[in-house]
Each structure stands twice: as structure tokens, then as C-alpha cells.
């Protein structure tokens, strides 16, 4: 079980390291892919925590989503290649302080709270997926349907603001 802790910590470190890299590079594609690898490391962490379905899902979803993020960054950032090494931050000191305080507070809670007994044995991976499916169709059914409506809202919102209608031309 020490191995498990080690891998959680290892991938956790990787996630944080990549997370920091997101804001330390001036190349936008690097930035987006750093975020991607941060998320992948989190997915690996999930695996180390034996939440297999969520881990694999995280690894899969984030690959495509963050790649799409990369193209949007390349579209809208001034210098996507980072060739000019331009500065893109403001209120840096305040932000660092806020980040440190926020992170520190969360850290304190994490370390200081008596979490009580920890469960050593996780349910089997296949059983997890089944149970999640049952949860989805059972108690959390409304949550699930609400998620559907939310996705619909997001689709409508994104399309409505982003896509310019062209007059005189039917959408092909």
C-alpha cells in the first residue's frame, strides 16, 4: 500500500508541476498541453486511487478537450508561439498571495482535519462501473437528466454567441 501512496504523490506532483508550467511558458500551445498533461496526471492519480472508470474517463476526455483549448488559444492569443516572450500577467503579487493563501487554507484543512478511519479496500473496478450505472439510473437520475439540460444550455449558449449567421445563405 506504500506503493499506492507513492504513486498518488508522484502523479500529484506531476499534476501540480504541469499546472505551474501552464502559467510559466509563453507558448500558448505548450501552455494548453501542459494543462492537458496536468489533467492526465490527475487521471493517473485516479487510477492510483483505484477509481478506474473516472481515471480513464478523465484521461480520455481531457485529451480532446484540452487540444481544442489549444486551438482556441492559438486563435485568440496575441503571440501563440511565445516568440516575443511577452508578459501576460497583472497584479502578480496579489495573485501569488491569493493563490498561496487559498492553497494554504485548503492545505491546512487537508492536513489538520481528523479524517477518521480510512477505507483500505476499494470496490473492484468492474463493480464500480456497474454501481455508477445503477446510481445514474437510480438515485441520481435527476442529476443526470439535469446535466443533460445543462449541456443543452451550454450548446445553445456557445452557438448563439459564437456563430455568426450569414444572411441569404441557408446553413448547409
Amino acid at each position, binding site marked *: *500500500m506504500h506503493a499506492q*501512496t507513492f504513486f*498518488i504523490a508522484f502523479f*500529484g506532483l506531476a*499534476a*501540480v508541476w504541469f*499546472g505551474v508550467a*501552464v*502559467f510559466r511558458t509563453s507558448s500558448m500551445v505548450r*501552455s*494548453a498541453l501542459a*494543462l492537458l498533461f*496536468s*489533467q492526465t496526471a*490527475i487521471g493517473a*492519480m*485516479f487510477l492510483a*486511487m*483505484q*477509481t478506474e472508470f*473516472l481515471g480513464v474517463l*478523465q484521461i480520455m476526455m481531457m485529451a480532446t*478537450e484540452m487540444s*481544442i*483549448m489549444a486551438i*482556441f*488559444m492559438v*486563435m*485568440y*492569443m496575441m503571440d501563440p508561439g511565445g516568440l516575443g516572450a511577452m508578459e*501576460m*500577467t497583472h*497584479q*502578480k503579487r*496579489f495573485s501569488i498571495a*491569493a*493563490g*498561496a493563501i487559498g*492553497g*494554504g487554507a*485548503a*492545505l491546512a484543512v*487537508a492536513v489538520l482535519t481528523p*479524517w477518521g478511519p*480510512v*477505507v483500505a479496500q476499494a*470496490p473492484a473496478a468492474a463493480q464500480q462501473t456497474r454501481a455508477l450505472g445503477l*446510481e*445514474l439510473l437510480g*438515485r441520481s437520475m435527476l*442529476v*443526470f437528466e439535469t446535466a443533460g439540460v445543462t*449541456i443543452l444550455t*451550454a*450548446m445553445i*449558449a*456557445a*452557438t*448563439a*454567441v459564437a456563430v455568426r449567421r450569414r444572411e441569404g445563405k441557408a446553413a448547409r
Partner: protein
Amino acid sequence: MTAALIAALVTGAALFGVGLYGALSQTNLVMIMMGVELILAGALVNLAAFWRFLHPGAYAGQMFVLIVMTVMALEMAVGFGVATARFRAKGSVEMEEAGELKG
């Protein structure tokens, strides 16, 4: 075993901190979204850790993770939609210019 839980929670906290820094310090809508993504990622880690180490029987915990993932995706979809509209209108997604150019 508590060490594993703590390791995960510490990661979540660190991600939260990094994300918060990013969201506050970046001048650009798209980069701010990256900060928010990191904050949400921190939440993901915590949720998964809680489920795994504290309540592995309660699958609402996993459901919660799924919902946060959905929120991440939707945040991006809407965010980029807004970014596209802004960029079309103003030629920029810088936040500071948002205020200046209103008048």
C-alpha cells in the same frame, strides 16, 4: 492509508492554489479559463479522494466527479463561445481592454 488520502488532498490544495493564482493573474480570458480549469481539477482530486478513502460505498461521490467534469467541459464551451464573440467584436480577449473599450 491516511497518507494516501493526505497526499491526494494536498495535491488538490496545491492545484487549487495554482489555479487561483492563474485565474487572478492572467489578463486574458482564455488564460483565466485555464486557471479555472485547474481549480476545478483540484476539486476533482478532492472529490475522488473522499469517495475512495472515506465513502467508497456512496456512488453519489463518483456521480459528483462526473458532474464536475461536465462543468469543466461546459465552462470551456461557453467560455470559448464568449471569447469568439468578443474577439469578433473587439479583436481581443484581454480582460483589461474589456472595460476600457466600453465607451
